[in-house]
């Protein structure tokens, strides 16, 4: 188990900014909704095995996940009137008297040398019924992932929204002195555990992007003082140079089917345009021909459109073009600076960097209504990325001279800072859902 890279600080709910009155009403609604965290209990799991103590505290991981979501308040173990490890032992009255609305209990059973079985059950205290029960095989190495998986199922049963505790995040960290930087491309669990360095370089690394199957990362590297795009397989470390044209090779993003990359090419004359690279045929198709900067392409989840940043109208704004070409349509109109669009996986929202009264902040635009909601409160926030459940975003903000990561719920209610152990952290990208 890796050391925790992040110290998680919870900042509950607080901030929704709007430059106009139309958003003010929304602000009140959200503030009202922010107060309540559902009281739940995660009872310490039972243990059956050779050792006197369980090799892993599954309940603690589940409780921490639910706590970190900002929507639940697990009660402390010392307040529990009973500690059942099977559903039949559960006395609902002992929990309703505490105001607990849901109880999680379970057992960890050793079935072989390094073979275990994790089972858990989730109960609704008011309705006095089981919401979900599940048993999973585990080894010492997979126990933590299985605990996150259980938390994901519990979260989905309680909220109707799939949990993202089992997901990962890729990001770039810059460490070392100002004149002697070391850039690292890192993948960790979303709670900061299991940190893995994917690539290191003395030259900048930028714009990591997950493949839809979570197996590969595309990124930009400036090794040799020129920009190139690589696709690296995480398991093997093998990497493929996929774009090394003269000038700019930037801003890669995988198509939803994983077969193509949208990317930005500059060419010798430096005119940045949106291009699509077919990864199997290695064919490039240029989508935009404007003389302005066209960059930061991102696919719609159905694969039909590409959203991108362009300053063809003066300042940077978000535009949309059909993935097979056509004429772009402008998407953002509010404010003088809207850039780096990322679609929510459900296709309903657009995250972007928005200049909000002198501050660069993360905003989400509802694509149906075009309403813009500012979610972050920093001066220099950047690189928003949706969680695969479309309900939370991760982005980079500043803390002193360094970048740190924050998450915010898409309604702006719950914001958390993932304080880094050191370095200038930037460009977080949330992974797709894990495959079980």
């Amino acid at each position: 188990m890796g050391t925790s890279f992040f110290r998680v600080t919870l900042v509950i709910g607080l901030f929704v900014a709007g430059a106009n009155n139309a958003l003010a009403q929304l602000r009140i609604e959200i503030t009202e909704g922010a107060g309540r965290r559902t009281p739940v209990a995660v009872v310490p799991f039972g243990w059956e095995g050779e050792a006197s103590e369980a090799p892993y505290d599954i309940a603690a991981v589940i409780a921490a996940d639910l706590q970190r979501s900002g929507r639940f308040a697990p009660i402390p173990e010392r307040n529990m009137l009973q500690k059942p490890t099977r559903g039949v032992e559960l006395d609902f009255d002992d929990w309703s008297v505490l105001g607990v609305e849901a109880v999680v209990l379970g057992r960890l059973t050793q079935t072989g040398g390094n073979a275990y079985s994790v089972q858990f059950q989730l109960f609704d205290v008011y309705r006095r019924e089981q919401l979900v029960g599940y048993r999973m095989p585990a080894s010492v190495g997979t126990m933590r992932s299985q605990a996150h998986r259980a938390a994901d199922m519990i979260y989905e049963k309680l909220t109707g929204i799939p949990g993202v505790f089992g997901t990962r995040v890729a990001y770039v960290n810059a460490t070392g002195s100002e004149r002697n930087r070391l850039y690292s491309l890192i993948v960790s669990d979303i709670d900061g555990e299991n940190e893995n360095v994917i690539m290191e370089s003395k030259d900048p690394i930028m714009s990591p992007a997950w493949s839809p199957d979570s197996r590969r990362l595309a990124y930009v590297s400036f090794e040799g003082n020129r920009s190139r795009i690589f696709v690296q397989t995480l398991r093997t470390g093998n990497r493929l140079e996929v774009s090394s044209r003269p000038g700019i090779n930037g801003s890669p993003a995988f198509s939803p089917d994983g077969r193509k990359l949208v990317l930005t090419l500059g060419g010798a004359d430096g005119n940045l345009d949106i291009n699509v690279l077919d990864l199997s045929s290695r064919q490039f198709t240029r989508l935009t021909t404007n003389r302005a900067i066209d960059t930061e392409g991102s696919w719609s989840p159905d694969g039909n459109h590409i959203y991108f940043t362009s300053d063809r109208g003066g300042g940077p704004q978000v535009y949309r073009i059909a993935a097979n070409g056509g004429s772009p349509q402008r998407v953002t109109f509010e404010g003088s600076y809207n850039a780096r669009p990322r679609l929510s996986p459900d296709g309903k929202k657009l995250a972007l960097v928005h200049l909000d009264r002198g501050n660069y902040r993360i905003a989400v635009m509802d694509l149906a209504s075009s309403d813009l909601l500012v979610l972050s409160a920093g001066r220099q926030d950047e690189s928003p990325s949706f969680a695969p459940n479309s309900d939370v975003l991760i982005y980079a903000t500043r803390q002193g001279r360094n970048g740190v990561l924050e998450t915010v719920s898409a309604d702006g209610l719950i914001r958390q800072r993932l304080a880094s152990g050191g370095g200038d952290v930037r460009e977080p990208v949330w992974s797709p859902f894990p495959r079980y």
Partner: protein
Amino acid sequence: MTIFRMTMAAALALQLLACASQEIPDPDPLDSGMSDSSATTDEFDERDLGAGEEIPSDVDFYADGDLIMTIYFDFDQSEIRPDDQATLEQHANRLANDSGARVRLEGHADERGSREYNIGLGERRAQSVRRLLLIQGASAAQISTVSFGEERPAAFGSDEDSWALNRRVEIKYLN
């Protein structure tokens, strides 16, 4: 490297010192080049390097990757300030006269806004320097560009002073 090219580089460096001394980076490549050689400062004061014979053949005034000059830009601008244009024209003349000479133009942006868009702003600045060099007679094959956007700041503060130092194009000499 040919004697001729070294001479051109030396002459160029002197001209830069004379007409745009504030643009010479610290440490000055001219000074560091000389300190490695047996040449004395007196030779420099003569301002007589045009003929080329005075320069020992083992001296590289510009090693590969050396910074020749830095050009700064206004906020959200890629236009070259008038006082930089004359200096750049001299660079262009030298490139035109020495077809073997190569430069890399490294564009940069300040930290504000999104990173890949800032790559675009840095590239736009590098391209405006490139265009001026081409107009003045340099050939396209002599010039490469790269944009680091906000990834390689020269100054690390989050204030207007630092931002002004970071909106720049660095011209680097390539062997």
